């Protein structure tokens, strides 16, 4: 662990911190964005995918002869082709399943690809799908997470022999001592549902293969390249530089759905290779709701050893994540991403963890916005409330009692997380004030006398951002890790250059999916170089040949605000330093005497001793011999930045799984209709510490979006399967995404506690309330239903579900 966190000097900002309108909006609002489906290449053909209607079945045979002869069909691939043309995708577990981009001999979830048709247009391709006959031999299904672990359960992968993909135990501190000192142990079992993000833009791929140079060019809307580029290269059996990925300027939402392994990139690439054509595939909504990616569903047994005064001495938990029919990268991250912040905002030094990652006949997973934290905090924050209830303590009081104190930062958790900065008390108090907490409790009591059910819920959570990829290696025990290659880092690459005429251009690799990265980058560079944001242009979409990238490059785990901004600042300062050196040389001054403002470089105190920035650029480009001795020509600087706090795990399985840690206090007041089980939200306060605010308008957008997202998982959204393994939410008629009508007014608040380890003091906020809202609404509804003896341990809470819980409780009394 580093002894001292690297700190940056935080300056006053002109542009950063202002609600500058987004540069992206004009093109997006006038329909001039460039998304995957906007890309038209010459002689492009179209693919449609045949998908399994069975959740678990052998494929005895596929007959494509009639389909091949259908007019307009250019070629068909089945699992047989895929097995010959590719390898299974690597994944970080000890015994991996054989996961290809298409089913080979067996299907393991409804919607799994079974064949691909390439045709002149999508209509014809779908006509041809109807002509393919597949002979399936159905097998018994396993849908329940816990049943999947039983020895009698149908086994999905014979080469593994069970449905358990990953299984580890962790011990931190001394749980035995905690149990001995405890006055009480409070237990809970929690079930977090399978749900996703359903971005407006689905997956899309356009692939072509050059048989002479043996390389692929693949357009796609991945949030990476992240680890995916390398893994797909391995699967295709090609050197990594033989596969060029190009991402369009605009991606219509990702939310993590486009950061999991994206098998369709490989599938369509192989379709292009076999047919010799340029092949385009745009996923339709039904396909997305069957076979794209969701977060894991999880069963958690969690218990807390507590003292009578509310102090939580230790936690023990067993969490079982379900990644579906296969496990694919970056899983089993689902079990390990939140290691560093597992104990949340509390001073809990003792922890025993058992972690299981299992498979059932459901579709596969990816880091869904919040990635593991919504599952973790639903259990932890519900348990905190259960503890408070057992002790007769106020649910706000118990949180204050256990919070990490402001003077304890930077705070190293029992599990190795290094919380950089925070003031949890201040943030939580703001949330309490916003809902007028004392008054709400009084109103609640009055309402109860009238038979009305009002509930108040909190969740106070640490918001981790900037993944340290080291955490994935926790799937291996320390002895195994020691034998292999360690992993660590959170790297990001930014290039900044000044053109011969003095204009600034930034090249980054974050593949934005609507976050407004280009705008913020412009604000940052404007501050650093003393120019106007309108004068800065940005390219931000990956081209793996033309861009500098690393295994961690991309937008995920809210890393832009922390690590990318730091890379931008660093690159900009390097450029500024070079410019000042050139100016100093030309003005005959010292670098330390110089200042940049509004496009001019001048000597402090002697403003007439100055030169225009563009003249510096002119010298660097047009008069290179006038540069200082030994200096490179041109104006071009790169920063490849990884946070020094991204280290491998130690032998005690401690790891700083993220790098910057924000904090969220969510407070929600609900009223539950005792007759119908409907939930109405009366008040909602969402207070965030995301460090220095880069652009308040964008931050508010992220918070509102993540609140709506969290609301979805709490009350509406679920990727549902029936007992026979059929996905029954394959359209928006049944997969219920909250609309504007369902999202109430949210009172957003901010407390800026700057991070000492990022250039601007900012922390991540892209996932934020996704992590806190499900727990908060669960707590609020539990609080409302407490007089009826109902406990809440699962989501989503539809009126039907709440009504059944109420009836069940009535029947027990």
């Amino acid at each position, binding site marked *: 662990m580093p002894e001292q966190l690297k700190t940056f000097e935080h300056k006053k900002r002109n542009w950063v911190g202002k609600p500058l309108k987004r540069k992206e909006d004009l093109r997006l609002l006038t329909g001039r964005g460039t998304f995957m489906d906007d890309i038209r290449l010459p002689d492009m053909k179209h693919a449609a995918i045949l998908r399994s*209607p*069975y959740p678990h079945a052998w494929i005895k045979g596929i007959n494509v002869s009639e389909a091949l002869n259908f007019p307009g069909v250019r070629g068909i691939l089945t699992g047989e082709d895929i097995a010959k043309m590719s390898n299974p995708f690597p994944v970080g577990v000890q015994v991996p399943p054989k996961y290809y981009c298409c089913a080979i001999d067996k299907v393991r979830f*409804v919607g799994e690809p079974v064949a691909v048709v390439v045709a002149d247009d999508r209509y014809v391709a779908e006509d041809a*799908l*109807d002509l393919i006959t597949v002979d*399936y031999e159905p097998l018994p299904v396993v849908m329940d997470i816990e049943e999947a672990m039983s020895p009698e359960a149908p086994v999905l992968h014979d080469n593994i022999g069970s449905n358990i993909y990953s299984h580890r135990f962790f011990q931190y501190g001394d749980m035995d001592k905690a149990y001995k000192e405890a006055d009480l142990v409070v237990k809970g079992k929690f079930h977090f549902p399978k749900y996703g993000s359903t971005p407006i833009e689905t997956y899309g791929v356009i692939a072509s293969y050059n048989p002479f140079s043996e390389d692929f060019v693949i357009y796609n809307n991945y949030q990476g390249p992240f680890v995916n580029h390398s893994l797909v290269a391995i699967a295709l059996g090609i050197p990594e530089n033989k596969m060029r990925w190009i991402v369009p300027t605009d991606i219509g939402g990702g939310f993590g759905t486009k950061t999991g392994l994206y098998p369709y990139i490989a599938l369509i690439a192989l379709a292009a290779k076999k047919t010799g054509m340029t092949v385009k595939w745009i996923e339709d909504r*039904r396909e997305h*709701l*069957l076979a794209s990616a969701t977060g894991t569903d999880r069963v958690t047994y969690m218990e807390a050893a507590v003292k009578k005064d509310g102090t939580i001495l230790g936690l023990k938990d067993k969490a079982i994540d379900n990644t579906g029919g296969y496990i694919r990268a970056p899983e089993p991250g689902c079990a390990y991403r939140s290691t560093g912040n597992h104990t949340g905002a509390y001073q809990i030094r003792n922890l025993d963890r058992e972690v299981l990652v299992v498979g059932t006949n459901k579709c596969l997973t990816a880091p869904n916005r919040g990635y593991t934290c919504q599952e973790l905090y639903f259990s932890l924050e519900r348990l905190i409330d259960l503890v408070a209830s057992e002790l007769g303590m106020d649910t706000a009081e118990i949180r204050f009692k256990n919070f990490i104190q402001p003077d304890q930062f930077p705070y190293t958790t029992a599990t190795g997380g290094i919380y950089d900065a925070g003031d949890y008390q201040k943030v939580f108090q703001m949330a309490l004030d916003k809902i007028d907490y004392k008054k709400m409790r009084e109103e609640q009591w009055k309402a109860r006398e009238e038979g009305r059910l009002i509930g108040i819920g909190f969740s106070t959570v640490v918001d981790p951002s900037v993944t340290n990829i080291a955490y994935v290696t926790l799937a291996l025990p320390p002895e195994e890790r020691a034998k292999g290659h360690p992993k660590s880092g959170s790297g990001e690459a930014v290039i900044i250059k000044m053109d011969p005429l003095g204009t600034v251009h930034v090249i980054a690799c974050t593949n934005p999916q609507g976050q407004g990265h280009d705008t913020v980058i412009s604000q940052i560079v404007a501050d650093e170089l003393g120019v106007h944001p309108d004068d800065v242009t940005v390219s931000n979409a990956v081209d793996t040949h033309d861009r500098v990238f690393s295994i961690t490059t991309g937008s995920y785990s809210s890393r832009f605000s922390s690590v990318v901004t730091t890379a931008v600042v660093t690159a900009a300062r390097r450029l500024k330093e070079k410019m000042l050196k050139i100016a100093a040389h030309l003005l005959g001054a010292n670098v330390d005497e110089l200042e940049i403002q509004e496009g001019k470089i001048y000597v402090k105190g002697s403003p007439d001793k100055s030169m225009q920035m563009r003249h510096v650029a002119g010298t660097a480009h047009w008069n290179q011999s006038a540069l200082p001795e030994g200096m490179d020509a041109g104006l071009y600087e790169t920063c490849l930045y990884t946070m020094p706090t991204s280290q491998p795990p130690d032998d005690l399985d401690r790891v700083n799984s993220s790098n910057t840690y924000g904090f969220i206090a969510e407070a929600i007041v609900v009223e539950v209709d005792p007759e119908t089980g409907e939930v109405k939200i009366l008040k909602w306060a969402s207070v965030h510490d995301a460090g220095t605010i880069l652009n308040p308008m964008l931050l508010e957008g992220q918070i509102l979006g993540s609140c709506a997202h969290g609301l979805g998982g709490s009350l509406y959204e679920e990727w549902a399967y*029936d007992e*026979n393994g*059929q*996905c*029954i*939410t*394959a*359209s928006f*008629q*049944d997969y219920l995404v909250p609309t504007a009508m369902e999202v109430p007014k949210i009172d957003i608040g901010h407390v800026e506690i700057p991070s000492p380890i990022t250039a601007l003091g900012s922390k991540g906020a892209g996932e934020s309330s996704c992590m806190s809202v499900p727990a908060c609404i669960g707590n609020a509804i539990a609080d409302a239903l407490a007089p009826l003896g109902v406990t809440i341990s699962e989501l989503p809470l539809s009126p039907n579900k709440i009504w059944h819980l109420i009836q069940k409780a009535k029947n027990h009394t």
Partner: protein
Amino acid sequence: MNIEGKHKFLASQEQIWDLFMDQKNLEKAIPGCEKMEEREPGKYDVLLKIGIAAIKGTYTGKIEVVDPEPPNRYRLLGEGSGSPGFVKGEATIEFSQEGQHTIVSYQGDMQVGGLIAGIGQRMIGGIAKMMAGQFFKKMAKELKSQQ
């Protein structure tokens, strides 16, 4: 999903047994049955165009009469697959005499997989019940026309 029900026929149990064993009647009564060919005794290949209103799917499959215990009960197994997915069902059908009437009661399970399951879960249960009812109505019609 579970399907169960009862129907009353004005006929003897033997007559009803024969009625339900006759392929011609099954072909007329099974919803959407366009073709039915006997492979072996009690095993039939079928072509079904099942649907309701504009929603139609074509399924090829098999129907089997299993464990017959004349004239009291038998099991009916069916499965079909087509581009919309598959349907699979099994039912135990029991006959009992009640005065001049025969009661036909059935209890079974039906699975629908693929497209319809994904987008039609709202109505599948009710429609399955409705089709079971249609089957018996048509059987009753056949009985009447034979009497």
